[in-house]
């Protein structure tokens, strides 16, 4: 099918003896929003790191946009159009907000100077303010260094970074974990806007209400394996069902032989 934007087959990652991710078969259609749920240590972030090329997988294939891909690093994943908010946020503490948002893709002048091309601070500041308006985050001075900001502000900066650039796939690993009520709502609005724009999303979240509000499908991870694939728009599925899958009380029919 041509409308599948991302597909993984037998995706596996071992850290020495730790089998963090085992034989993950996952598909995402273009425009679809999927949540990944599961307990701490279930392998959700590991899954994200393999797709985005932050780490090299042990085995398995990844097909993105109809082509098999082997990202050597997150740069290549981003160039292919995958924007990611990592759980670790990946911000440079001693730089300010615009610097972080544009890190690695600065707006520049004097481009003939190669690596010594000049930064266009003003343009980056203006675009940063525009991007932050979308998240409605309160940051008194965006030229303050990230180090001095609250956890929620840092998280909003990381989200604004992905939201400022057009992408073919957005991945967010627990984007609202440290946010207040208002900020969470704003992030959810960003996600709804992505949905309206038809951009696909993978959302890692522990927040049941949020997941049911936002996404089309829930994929549950347990001990490194996918143990359920729940179409919450079609089938009647409750929060209790999902909890059952997460804790291991239940297992999806198609995963019976493999899941523990």
């Amino acid at each position, binding site marked *: 099918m041509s409308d599948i934007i991302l597909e993984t087959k037998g995706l596996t990652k071992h850290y020495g003896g730790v089998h963090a991710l085992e034989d993950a078969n996952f598909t995402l259609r273009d425009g679809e929003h999927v949540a990944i749920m599961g307990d701490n240590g279930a392998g959700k972030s590991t899954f994200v790191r393999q797709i985005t090329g*932050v780490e090299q997988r042990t085995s398995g294939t990844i097909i993105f946009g109809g082509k098999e891909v082997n990202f050597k*690093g*997150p*740069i290549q994943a*981003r*160039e292919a159009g995958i924007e*990611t908010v*990592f759980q*670790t*946020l*990946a*911000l*440079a*503490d*001693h*730089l300010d907000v615009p*610097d972080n948002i544009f*890190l*690695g*893709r*600065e707006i*520049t002048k004097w481009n003939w*100077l190669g*690596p*010594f*091309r*000049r*930064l266009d*601070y003003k343009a980056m*500041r203006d675009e940063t*303010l525009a991007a*932050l*308006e979308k998240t*409605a*985050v*309160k*940051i*008194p*001075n*965006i*030229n303050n260094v990230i*180090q*001095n*900001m*609250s956890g929620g502000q840092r998280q909003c900066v990381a989200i604004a970074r992905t939201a400022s650039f057009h992408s073919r796939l957005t991945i967010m690993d627990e984007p609202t974990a440290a946010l207040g009520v208002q900020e969470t709502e704003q992030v959810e609005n960003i996600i709804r806007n992505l949905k309206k724009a038809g951009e696909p999303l993978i959302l890692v979240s522990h927040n049941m209400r949020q997941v049911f509000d936002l996404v089309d499908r829930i994929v549950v991870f347990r001990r490194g394996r996918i143990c359920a694939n729940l179409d919450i728009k079609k089938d009647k599925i409750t929060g209790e069902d999902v909890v059952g899958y997460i804790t291991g009380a239940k297992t999806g029919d198609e995963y019976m032989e493999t899941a523990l």
Partner: protein
Amino acid sequence: MANTSRGTGGLAFDPKKRSLPSELNIFIALILIVLIFEALGQILPYMNNQSFLFDTRDRFDSIFNEARLRIIILQVSIIGIIALGVTQVIISGGIDLSSGPLVGATAMIAMSFAQTELVNGNPNPKAVFGEWAFDLPVLIPVVVGLAFGAFIGSVNGMLIAFTRIPPFIATLGMFLICRGIAQAWTRGKPVSFPTDSFAFIGKGMMPVAWFIGLAFILHFIMRYTVYGKHTYAIGSNEDAARMSGINVERHKVMVYMIASMLAAFAAIILSSKNLTAQSGMGIFYELYAIAMAVIGGVSLTGGRGSIIGTVLGAMVFGVIQSGFTYIKLDAFFQLMAMGTIIISAVVLDKVRQERATKRS
């Protein structure tokens, strides 16, 4: 100008109350140190009320003790050029210990290509090569020297970036290798008698001009270019830099290469100024350069510091060194005092750092 365009979400921010640049502290320290030495000149009984930096003799054409100022600035300039390079290395989260011996090795090599044939009508007694290497255009020794620096720097950088050995170890190894190269080049014999055009590079106050010029360029690079921003980002959070798409390995090679090229250029200036090159040149320079950066507020943990800070740190360093000589402190006490000052600067930085994180 009421600037409300820096914040979002309607939180108040008064740009007038912006915190003062941290370089100001160093500048104040510089003035305090000068005053302390002035006071010591008045207090210490054996000083006969001499002034440290001001002209106390009955001459009206000058306020300052120009001779001493000139010596301070000259001394600071050559090591200061190395400090500019080491500043960006430390900001990137690394360290470069190889610069001092690199000065010795580069001076020997560059000077070998800068020799003149006739010294006062006699053949050059220190000739390293044959006929062909006499009276070459000045560009050749300069390019050879810089190329040697670039080579050593890129080896440093590649070792650190690709084998992931700690910068301390990589450059410590290179420290010994360079000192070895310097001694092996002529089996320890000095190389002397350069051409006039080579001698011009470091003549008179030329080193100061080079230092100021290079400081401007490095300041611009660190503050206003992609290269500078990425250097800070790597020192601040290497993983984040990598995830943001910065080619961290390639960037580190560049950082060490530029540092070593600056050290090599300092060697060219120094040998030109002294009209001779010796394998022992540049002893302690790597430590002094690091000290200048650290005194100037460059954080050894990476991500923080500035070229302006290092330039001020270099001045503090020069003033202290000259001040010690001025109050006739013995050389061994000078070393001890210098060591104490460097340790204090790092401790102070750490305290400041910890206080900053406690606030957030």
